[in-house]
């Protein structure tokens, strides 16, 4: 089992990873939890700031951090850490009810 401590990246690291994302959608194509159309532009935009739309919130809740999104990334980013950040934002926003 993976050490859960390692799933999380710092705010600055998540921001840096979001910037380095080239938008190829490979992570979303590999995701077993995504069950509705969602594009990477919306996901990236809402991961770190601003309002969280309903589809992104649903996706963040359904993400179970399996890590399937990490190996396909051509630039070696960690979508799981970004999703964790999104989950935290969602939690903070009180929308997790």
């Amino acid at each position, binding site marked *: 089992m993976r050490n*859960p401590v390692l*799933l999380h990246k*710092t*705010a*600055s690291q998540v*921001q840096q990873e979001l910037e380095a994302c080239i938008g190829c959608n490979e992570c979303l194509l590999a995701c077993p939890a995504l069950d509705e159309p969602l594009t990477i532009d919306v996901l990236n935009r809402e991961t770190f700031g601003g309002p969280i739309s309903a589809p992104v919130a649903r996706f963040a809740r359904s993400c179970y951090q399996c890590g399937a999104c990490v190996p396909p990334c*051509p630039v*070696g980013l960690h979508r799981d850490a970004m999703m964790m950040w999104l989950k935290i934002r969602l939690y903070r926003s009180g929308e997790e009810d």
Partner: protein
Amino acid sequence: MRQDHAGHRAPLFKGAEQPSIDRADIVIVGNGIAGLTAAIQARSFEPDARIAIISDQNHPTINTPALKQFAVGKLTREQLLAYPPGTERQERIHLIHARVEKINAQSKSVILANGSAFGYGALLVATGSTPTALPSQLPGRDFDGVLTLHRLQDYLDLRRRLSEVEEAVVIGGGAHACETVMGLLHWGIHVHWLIRSAVLLPRMLDETASEMVLERIRQAGVTVYTSTEVIGIVGRVGSVIGVVTNHQQFIPCQLVVACTGTKPVTTLAKHCDLPLKHENGILVDDHLRSSVRDIYVAGDVAALKNPLTGQYEPRAQWYAAVEQGRMAGAMITGHREAVRPFGVPWHATHLGDLSMLYVGNPLQSPSGAYVLTDTSRGGYRRLLLQGERLIGYLSLGPMQPDSLAIKRIIDEELPVRDILKGLLKGEFDARQYLTRRRTYTAQDLVTSGRLASVKPPTVQTAAQTTPEPAPATRSLAPAAEAAQLEPRLPTTEQLPPLSTGPVLAPQRAPVAAPAGNAGPRYPIVHEEEEISPFTGTLPALPEQGQGRGQPGTRLNSGSLPSRPEQERGGRRNLWAYSDPALPAFPRQSPAQRQQVRAYNEQREGGR
């Protein structure tokens, strides 16, 4: 056409013929990722500035690296957008569909193709790059079927042609050529790949790595010709039927794709009334300032000094363009504190079915440096070390390592002695390493008893002396502070004075301040973001009056600090995009954090 939030049909570009405005505080030429990133960044600093992007591109900003996925049909055009539709409108960025012909730097205006002038307060040139076409004297270069792949239109063109292509020739020895080869292979096309040099990516790969990539690509069915150039393209009735190489070989094909690199679009530099220095790109300093006042340059067109060679050269890569866009936005709005250095070169991509990572300068050989290589686990790693420091890392393998973490290790010059084996074998867990570095610091604090020797903080200090508790829960620390848990970095000097009273002079920010006083002065630090919510400490519920009680501000306050905060002089943290109206996770009290910081400094001072 796309729709805004209200569902109204909105024109793609505002005022295509007659711009509704004739000047803006910030004018950006080019709506590539550097231009748009700069605009959004500038907006985050200047809520009231008038920002305009002038571009003759007929589509919104797209993720250009994703065009290779578009080429193989994995993505639709809509999935290429870099930002959600309506972002420009939401950020109040004027989009003007026009071509900029020249710059009148003396009168601070640009001249559009229709002859009208558009004034600027600050100008950002982000005109990007254009593909290097095949040599103009090359016979047959204008036959139908000879393409370059750079813009969306090129890829649309390619996709329309695919059904007629059985054999294709790809010219070029870079990552783009490699991606193109793999894309064509995906469609069942037999690809002939012509590489001028003996190795692939000679600036990034050594011979071993290059051969490893090429061998796998050969196995996939591609015919690779190294040390081979095209000396002519043969056509029949206007359309390409083959190429002739310098080895007098004729290769039949219905498509020729030239992936021979890009060059910066410097036409505006040539058409500027003041000398805007340019060679291979428009020359800029480390803060993206050009040789003309109030003109900044970012993205593929900017030529930055390479610290190793001293040469000015563009860094035509996606991540570099995003970083430069951010820096340009901060510089133009005068927020130099938000500027962070670019660090070492970083490039990560797929080469065939292998993941390539290039960080720092693994192929250089400065004095005192030594190289370690490893070819286990079906991959290849090349480490360039100088003493205990890693200065270059090249990796090739089935899995991409944590690429940005390795960049961080090189950028921050972290010692790698303990992790050398992992790095070399390709089994290095960067996150574990970085997490442990923090954990050790905390463990030291606990086990050494230093934590207990300091007077425990009292909650009332923060409450009593910080008049604005709600915004104060937000991280306002500077970007540099993100790394402050590393003991070797200076900490206290960088901390922002956050009190609402007169700004403290830097020398008065005491290193050994009594813990009790530290609370109000530094109520916010960044390391709480560094702590995992899965370490066992559950996040605290939002404090009263924040978060849940304010649904209007809660979700929409993502990035922009409020005006009063700016006026207070607090240095904003670019990374802390988290919601300011919501409390951060208050696991450490301010005074506890101050203790950590003081301890770190003490350790630093002792070395």
